[in-house]
């Protein structure tokens, strides 16, 4: 509790700092704007209202993926007595990341590159960003908040492996630390001009930054937290899972097609690849289940769709429709076996398969991007099938580096929290359900 109050105080302090800095900025910013206008004559970037329209909406769509999309997807999968706690984990992650992103997250990721490792803190509290600042053809503010939504969902995704046993206070601290020392650097490396970007790793919309990052952190945490008392998946409300899947799918169009950062043909192919991979992945998961476990389930359809969406993420703006189909087929059965066979064998308790789906399908997508990247779709990427085997190696390096870094950082964070505040709730409270012990409320009074 004291910790919480401290956080509150820090927040308020930083705000005042921010007001001060903002006032400093109030004067120069028109000057900056003027300069931009002066230097605008010939081919200077100009705001495009169409691109801006699309990116505003894309941002809102990605926001929707976390609240309520992922929150309800995870909430519906958890046991009835843990529903609200599971939802609250995604909800609070989105809120905390939203605040920290505008304070320091954006500048550490997209500020001037320092040593290929991290961005410079020049835009703390978004100082220097003005209403007419542009990022490409769209307002910089939109770019900032678009990227914010990616950071937020990445953190929230991790929770899927930790639920039904982690203390809510521990999770709150985790969100702050993990976003800061795990997400920001990796995002900088790949998108902010860091070393993986320089190496030429392809990641259209976040296979590595978002899904492998979150998936590996999920696995590490699942192992460190240990097993739940009731180590079994009993979805409290599958209608919420379908709802969550639908909102994720919808939002993913903003995620993937929005990563074109413009309303153009590249957004178009990213969109259709996204839909195709999700759809075929759902069908393949269903058929795999039908032949392997005798019945096709709705949860299987939903899981397959999500796996397909994850796998196509790094590839969406690089591959053609056939590439998308192959990627979707792979994400339809490989994660299934990871979840249904590998997990029970290895014995880690990844409650909602955050690793099994996001980690595995993210890796499939990252690697296959190195195979199927088609230069006629996007000049920026050319894969194995198009005569560039080096790309495949680069993809492996990016996946490997990320996985190793995240493993180390996540372990450290969890160890620190364990010492500071403890990680797990009492066994008895766990059985009773975390909704009551952590929040004192109940999902349904029916």
């Amino acid at each position, binding site marked *: 509790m004291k910790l919480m109050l401290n956080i509150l105080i820090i927040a308020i302090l930083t705000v005042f700092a921010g007001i001060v800095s903002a006032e400093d900025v109030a004067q120069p910013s028109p000057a900056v704007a003027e300069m931009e206008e002066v230097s605008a004559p010939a081919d200077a970037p100009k705001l495009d209202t169409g691109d801006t329209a699309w990116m505003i909406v894309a941002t809102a769509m990605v926001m929707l993926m976390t609240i309520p999309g992922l929150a309800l997807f995870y909430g519906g999968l958890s046991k009835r007595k843990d529903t609200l706690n599971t939802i609250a984990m995604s909800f609070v992650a989105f809120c905390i990341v939203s605040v920290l992103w505008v304070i320091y997250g954006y500048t550490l990721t997209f500020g001037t590159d320092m040593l290929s490792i991290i961005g410079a803190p020049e835009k703390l509290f978004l100082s220097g960003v003005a209403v007419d600042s542009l990022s490409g053809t769209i307002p910089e503010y939109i770019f900032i908040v678009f990227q914010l939504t990616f950071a937020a969902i990445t953190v929230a995704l991790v929770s899927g492996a930790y639920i039904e046993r982690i203390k809510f206070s521990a999770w709150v601290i985790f969100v702050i630390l993990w976003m800061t020392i795990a997400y920001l650097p990796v995002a900088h490396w790949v998108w902010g001009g860091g070393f993986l970007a320089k190496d030429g790793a392809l990641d259209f919309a976040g296979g590595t930054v978002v899904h492998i990052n979150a998936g590996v952190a999920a696995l590490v945490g699942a192992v460190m937290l240990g097993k739940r008392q009731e180590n079994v*998946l009993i*979805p409290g409300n599958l209608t919420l899972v379908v709802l969550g899947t639908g909102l994720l799918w919808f939002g993913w169009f903003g995620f993937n097609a929005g990563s074109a950062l413009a309303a153009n043909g590249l957004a178009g192919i990213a969109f259709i690849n996204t839909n195709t991979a999700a759809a075929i992945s759902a069908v393949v998961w269903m058929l795999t289940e039908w032949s392997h*476990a005798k019945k096709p389930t709705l949860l299987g359809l939903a899981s397959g769709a999500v796996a397909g969406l994850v796998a196509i993420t790094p590839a969406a703006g690089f591959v053609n429709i056939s590439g998308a189909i192959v990627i979707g087929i792979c994400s339809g059965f490989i994660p299934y076996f990871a*979840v*249904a*066979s590998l997990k029970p064998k290895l014995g880690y308790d990844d409650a909602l398969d955050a690793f099994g789906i996001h980690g595995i399908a993210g890796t499939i997508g990252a690697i296959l991007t190195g195979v199927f990247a088609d230069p006629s779709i996007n000049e920026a990427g050319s894969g194995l099938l198009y005569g560039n085997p080096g790309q495949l190696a680069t993809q492996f390096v990016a996946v490997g580096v990320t996985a190793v870094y995240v493993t180390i950082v996540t372990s450290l964070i969890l160890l620190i929290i364990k010492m500071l505040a403890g990680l797990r709730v009492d066994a008895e409270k766990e059985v009773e359900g975390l909704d009551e012990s952590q929040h004192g409320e109940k999902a349904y009074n029916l």
Partner: protein
Amino acid sequence: MKKIEAIIKPFKLDEVKDALNELGVQGMTVTDVKGFGRQKGHVELYRGTEFQISFIPKVKIEVVAINGMVEKIVSTIIEKANTGKIGDGKIFIYALEDVIRIRTGEKGESAI
């Protein structure tokens, strides 16, 4: 007076209820219960992992009746709730010491 308590399959409830009504039974109380018995439960399947549901949804019907009616009530329930398959359920019969109607305070058989 006796209490007849029958555990039956839920989809037989309407039929049994209607038959008892025809017999002149004016009231009964029904509870959703879970049964464990010779009939085994089913398997649910989440992400490829089987999950054994060992209980089976049943309904319990409670009817309080005068002694003279017990025989008829029991045979009506047997007739209507019977499917011939395992899990059709049981009927338990208990003695009752008294009945009171809350609305009027009447006691005994007239309160049923």
